[in-house]
């Protein structure tokens, strides 16, 4: 899983390392570290924002290790949605009940509609919308796309999908590898 957390460490040498060490000890993979020294702060502490991948079952242990190292956790969030796919829909979107379309996709449980931007055209002209699907797995996006295609057929909507994307970046595993 990917999580982001905000930590508070004392603003003195070696403190940041103290916060990062338990992560690598537990096999986590740090993706980004942002630390800011607030010039107005008088608390003598430093806020650090870290994004990392770690196994779900190791998370509790990480929290304990950090506590032991005198690092306080201000906030911790699971970054649930790693995979995004944006598609464009064209058709009588309003007329065919857009919120029903969104609900049907959300109801699959495999992905949800993260963003929807619609452009209103002249009356009786088809509407165009950009829809971003979010899921924590490629499988989830694939399932949501199957649902969306079903809905599109039923409501006579045109889905424009990205060229690179689901089922596209696959590698069938028969690539020839050469070690020398």
């Amino acid at each position, binding site marked *: 899983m990917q999580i982001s957390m905000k930590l508070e460490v004392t603003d003195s040498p070696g403190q940041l390392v103290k916060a990062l060490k338990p992560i690598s000890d537990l096999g986590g993979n740090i993706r980004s570290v942002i630390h800011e020294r607030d010039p107005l702060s008088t608390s003598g502490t430093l806020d650090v924002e870290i994004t990392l991948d770690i196994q779900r079952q190791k998370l509790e242990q990480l929290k304990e290790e950090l506590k032991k190292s005198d690092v306080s956790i201000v906030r911790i969030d699971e970054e649930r949605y790693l995979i995004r796919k*944006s*598609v*464009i829909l*064209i*058709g009588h979107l309003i007329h065919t009940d857009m919120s029903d379309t969104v609900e049907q996709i959300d109801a699959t449980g495999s992905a949800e509609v993260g963003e929807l*931007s619609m*452009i209103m*055209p002249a009356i009786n*002209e*088809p*509407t*165009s*919308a*950009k829809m971003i699907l979010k899921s924590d797995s490629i499988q989830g996006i694939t399932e949501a796309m199957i649902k969306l295609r079903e809905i599109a057929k039923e409501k006579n909507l*045109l889905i*424009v*999908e*990205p*060229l*690179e994307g689901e089922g596209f970046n696959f590698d*069938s595993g*028969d*690539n*020839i590898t050469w070690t020398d």
Partner: protein
Amino acid sequence: MDRLKIAILGFGSVGKGLAKIIADKNLGIIITAIADSKSGIIDNKGLNVAKVLLAKKKTGLCGDTSITPQKIIETAEYDVLVEVTPTNAATGQPALDYIKAALSRGKNVVTSNKGPIALEFKSLQKMADENNCLLKYEATVCGAIPIIHALQHGLAGNKIKKIYGVFNGTCNYILTRMSDEKLTYKQALLEARELGYAESDPTYDIKGIDAAIKLVILANTVLGFDKTLDDVEITGIDNMSSDAIGLALEDGKTIRLIGEIDAERETLSVAPRILPKNHILVVKDTLNAVTARTDLAGDVTLIGKGAGSFETASAIISDLLYIKENHGGRN
């Protein structure tokens, strides 16, 4: 064989372009017969091309109304029949019969006509093999781009996993204009018509059928499949909106009509797709662009003109010279 003798059926944009190139360039090719829809002309020693072109321009006829395509196929002296009559995607006729008649007479055939190749490639190839002659059709897909040669010969030994790209210049022109100049679909289509890029009935192009036929040809000729037009999942651009393209542009993307053969799943599809604006397949105006995804060579992309008189004739010339080199002296 010192000189390759050819007979041309169809004397329109492609046929005339071909004749002009042969008259202009010293390619070792002579034309012994030409036919259009109403007339024909034969001279087994080689026609005076300039004279025939002039006659066609003045009278609308290339020759004598008593000389039919059938007569040319059966009686003229030629090594290769060049079949460049109009495409009929439903029946392949009359081209199909012309090609069969020439092959059964043991003559090589070169065509730019998608109909017969999309409908009956297997049986035509079998006929050619049985009669020990060559059947070549480079010009049927993507005009000037030597896509068939590249896939059959240039990338020989590779496993082809996917072939995908822009196969229809008219749709690409419309989408380019909608994207770059913010034209509406209707305005862009009108412009394409005025410039002669779209037929007065543009159905085949905008509904994605033309691109689909080209996929069928590639699938059957290059990949050895047995596909028909019904096997292609087709979505055209006739419902495209400028708002949709605007939404894509907001993200640095645009929309193009992409034909795709997935060789591993054996599926064929044509649909408008979202691509980054700087994607290699986002080519301008009437250009075509095709990527082959292979196991050894990786991705190979070819870009060029998909139509036009000389451009299409270029592909025909290449087929003719291939026959000259590989089948020379047999006849």
